[in-house]
Each structure stands twice: as structure tokens, then as C-alpha cells.
């Protein structure tokens, strides 16, 4: 095929406000990381060593949410320098857990916490990359796993984007032949509104999914909320189910607001 095999694609891995967990999808791969490095050229990946934050690249994987004014300038530069920009993880796709501060007055918090809040550069909200630049593909999850990132790279090497899978966690749960714990244990599983990708890890341990892969396609949060109520959850309990790792994604944000309650 016509793909130009002579040059390895240049890859950058950037970090914004995050826990570092999504980059670990690469760093935790074991020896397979070295095999991957045969196929692509990591020109910028500060945590792994290569540093060239101005490099023009084919692929930029970006972890973390935009939280400071300096972040804003940096993400725009990355966009300019990258043929394809891929948001990885909940922080980059929905603002992450730190977007919980969007519901409060973030600067007020800083004042409560830091003796000298004036030294803290912080935008009023923690936001996903897509709020600021065009994002070519989003890999959801907190954290994303190596299958997602390597799958992306493998598809890219074949000249295509991967097929997006926004089905519910339930689909993976059932393929693993796990009994539905919402039904058998009456616990408030978020699987029916959460995007697949993790392989139904939580129901696999007999516990409830807490939505770390973000909203699925066509999520009926109203109906799930009604079911949670029947399971005995209070409006606060329900709001907190949605106000978790992907609290700032529109579907969960709206569901939390609708659930009522006083939690903020």
C-alpha cells in the first residue's frame, strides 16, 4: 500500500493537569514498550526522557485538563505542531476529577488552602482539551489502558483511525458472562450509562461501575436515576454517582443537577 514506510511516525506525549496515570498506559506496557518504540519515534515524552516540546509531530497524545493560563497557550501550540491530536483520559476528555472545582469557586478554594493564593495560577475551570482546540480523537477512561493507546497507534500505522466504541460497559460485562450486580446485589452500577473500554473491570470484581470511562452513547441517565432511587439512594447519593471522575461531561453534569440533593 502507499503508506510511506520509510520514516517512523513522530509521536509526542504531553501532560497537563493530571495524575500521570494515563501515560502509564505506555510506561506500564513492560518490554512491549521497546517493541512499540521500534514502530514510532517518541520525540517528546518528558516522563520517559525525550524532551522536545516544540517538535512537529504526526501524533500528539495529550493527558490532563486545561487548568492554567499557561496551559492554554501550550495546548494551542501543541495543536499547531501536531497533525493529529489525541486526548487521552478523563482529564483530557471531560476535565477530569479536578473539574469538581468547577462547581465551586476555585479561586476561593485556593484562598482557603494556600497562605499566598496569589502565587497560584489557576483558571476558574478545569476543562477538556476540546473546549480549546480541535481534537482528532478521544480515548476515554480514567485511566486509559494500553489496549486503547496501542490500538490507536496500530490503526494509525495502517492509515486509519480506530473505530470508536461508545457502547455501554454492560456490553462488555455480558461478554464476560458476569451476572449483573445491579440486579443480583442491588448495587448502583453505572454500567448502563458508562462507555465501554475497560472490559467491565468493576462488575468483574462483583462491585458497581462508578463511571470512570465517561458517558456512553445514548445514555438514559433519567432511567438509571429512577432505578437508583428504587434501590434506596438519596438524591445526594445519586448526584455523587454522577459527580465523579467525569463530572464535567455534559451527560453526567446534567444528570447530577437533575438528581437534586445538596452535594456540591
Amino acid at each position, binding site marked *: *500500500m*502507499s503508506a510511506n514506510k520509510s520514516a517512523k511516525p513522530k509521536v509526542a506525549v504531553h501532560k497537563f493537569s493530571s495524575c500521570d496515570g494515563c501515560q502509564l498506559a505506555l510506561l506500564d506496557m513492560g518490554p512491549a514498550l521497546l517493541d512499540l518504540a521500534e514502530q514510532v519515534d517518541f520525540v517528546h515524552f518528558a516522563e520517559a526522557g525525550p524532551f522536545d516540546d516544540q517538535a512537529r509531530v504526526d501524533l500528539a497524545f495529550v493527558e490532563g485538563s486545561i487548568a492554567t493560563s499557561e496551559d492554554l497557550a501550550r495546548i494551542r501550540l501543541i495543536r499547531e505542531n501536531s497533525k493529529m491530536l489525541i486526548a487521552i483520559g478523563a482529564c483530557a476528555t471531560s476535565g477530569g476529577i479536578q473539574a469538581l472545582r468547577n462547581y465551586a469557586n476555585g479561586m476561593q478554594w485556593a484562598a482557603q488552602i494556600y497562605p499566598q493564593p496569589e502565587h497560584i495560577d489557576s483558571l476558574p475551570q478545569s476543562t477538556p482539551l476540546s473546549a480549546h482546540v480541535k481534537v482528532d480523537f478521544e480515548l476515554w477512561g480514567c485511566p486509559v489502558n494500553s489496549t486503547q493507546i496501542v490500538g490507536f497507534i*496500530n*490503526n494509525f500505522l*495502517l*492509515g*486509519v*483511525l480506530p*473505530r470508536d466504541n461508545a457502547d455501554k460497559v454492560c456490553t462488555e460485562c455480558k461478554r464476560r458472562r458476569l451476572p449483573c450486580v445491579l440486579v443480583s446485589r442491588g448495587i448502583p452500577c453505572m454500567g448502563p450509562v458508562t462507555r465501554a473500554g475497560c472490559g467491565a473491570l468493576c462488575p468483574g470484581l462483583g462491585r458497581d461501575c462508578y463511571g470512570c470511562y465517561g458517558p456512553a452513547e445514548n445514555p438514559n441517565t433519567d432511567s438509571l436515576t429512577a432505578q437508583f432511587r428504587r434501590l434506596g439512594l438519596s438524591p445526594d447519593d445519586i448526584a455523587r454517582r454522577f459527580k465523579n471522575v467525569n463530572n464535567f461531561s455534559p451527560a453526567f453534569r446534567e444528570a447530577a443537577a437533575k438528581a437534586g440533593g445538596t452535594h456540591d
Partner: protein
Amino acid sequence: MTMVANLSDKMLVPQPAVVVGRTQESPSIFTLKLRLEDGAAQAAFRHSLGQFNMLYLPGVGEVPISIMSDPEDQQAIGHTIRAVGRVTNRLAELQIGDRIGLRGPFGRGWPIENMKGRDVVVITGGLGCAPVVAVIHYILRRRADYGHLTIIQGVKKAEDLIWRDQYAQWNTHPDTHVMVAADEGGPLWPWHIGRVTDLFGRIPMQPDKAMAVMCGPEGMMVVSAKMLAEHGMPEENMFLSMERNMHCAVGHCGHCQFGGAFVCKDGPVFSWPQVKGLIAHRGF
């Protein structure tokens, strides 16, 4: 549990095919000529008009594509493809000598034998529609065997009509009429401005004996079928080609279900009475 399947059944696992010809038809439409690498398999490949193959790009995916070539052409298998998405965009980059996977042919095609001696009306809409173009080519190559051939194409805007030369050229064949309608015309638009169905009154045909083949947006086909019926064409003489999502092409995966029909094996060509009950319903 009687049938024992042959694991290497060519219908279930692709066979390597090589690109032996490639034509760019328009900025986004191209034709590939493919030949199965296994000479015996190529020689044994038989299809009927309106059937389709599954074309496979290694590591990327499979897509259903109608077979364009003449059933009597045993040298190569022709496919005219519009680059629209993940797989087809990549297929568009293929060059002569490249290899892909192919399995097929699948489905039921046009009742081309029944059309012999009759007037044929071909109706398509939107961008050029491969399955009916194959019918046009077939008839034009055997012009004497068929009655009047009317080719009706509807487009939204004048610039949407691709293959303008081709339409003009078809129009030069004996007993062949091309009628094109654009909702919005343009300078030098030689054809009708308005809806396709406005043209139906002018179709030269013996309505009770003529046959229609249709392909394109379902809404257009529904209106066309109703109008043809009003013009006296028996419903069982109208045929159309359907598209649905397909993964297996052999009636297993369930994606292409249209009511009780599996489009991949019961279609893609259906007679109007077979589909008219559901086709107007959003959601089937």
C-alpha cells in the same frame, strides 16, 4: 446439525485479490479491477448482476461493495467505490499491484433475465449508484435484447451530478433516454429543474410490461415506486437495491435485518411488494 462446513470456505474467509486496474471516476469515486490471486478461484468466480462482495483491508475492516463488472467478464472483478469513511477512504489509496482480501459473491441480484424484451426504467438518486450502473452497462452491451431504456437520475444541485459525460454518452445509444432532474439547476444545465418524479409522465414505456430498477435514497425510491404504480407499472415489476450495515454477509451477524429479511442474503435486490410495508418506516 447435518451440514459439515468446510473451514476454508471462501465465503467465510477472504481470499487474496490483487488490484489489476484502477480508474478515478470523480474526486471521490474510483473503480478497482480485482483479480483473485488463486487462478482457479478467479476462473471459478461467477456472479449475477446486483450481487456484492466483501472487500477486506488487512487490519482495517471489511465493507460490502456491489460488483460492477459484467458477469461474462472472467478476467477481473470490478467495483466502483465512493470514498466516504474509514475503510473506503483507505481503499481509495490502493494502487495497481496492491493486495486486499475478497469474499463473495453474496446476495440476490437483479432479475435481469426477466427484463429481456421489455422496457426498462432505471431510477437513481443522490450520487451515482453502482448497482444500477451495472444494469445500464449490461443492457447497453446487449442493446437488442431489451426494449426502451430510460435512465432517470435526481440530484439536489446541478454540481452534484457526476459523470456528466457518461450521461450524455448513454443518451446517444439507440432507444435510450437519459433524464436528469436537479432541485436546483445552474448555468448550462441542460436537464430538468425540479423533482425526478416530474419526469415520470415522459417515460417511453409500455407501463404494464416495463420493469423498473431503483437504487438510491429510500425516500426517493418510495416516491418513485408510487408514481410508477400511478403510471400503470405493476408493483411486482419494480425492483430496488437496499443498503444496510453488514458484517458477515451470510445472514448470521444480524445487522442487515430489515423486518424479517436479511438484506445480505434475501437481498440486496428486492421487489417492491417485498419491502413496501416497512420501507417508509423510520427505524427499519
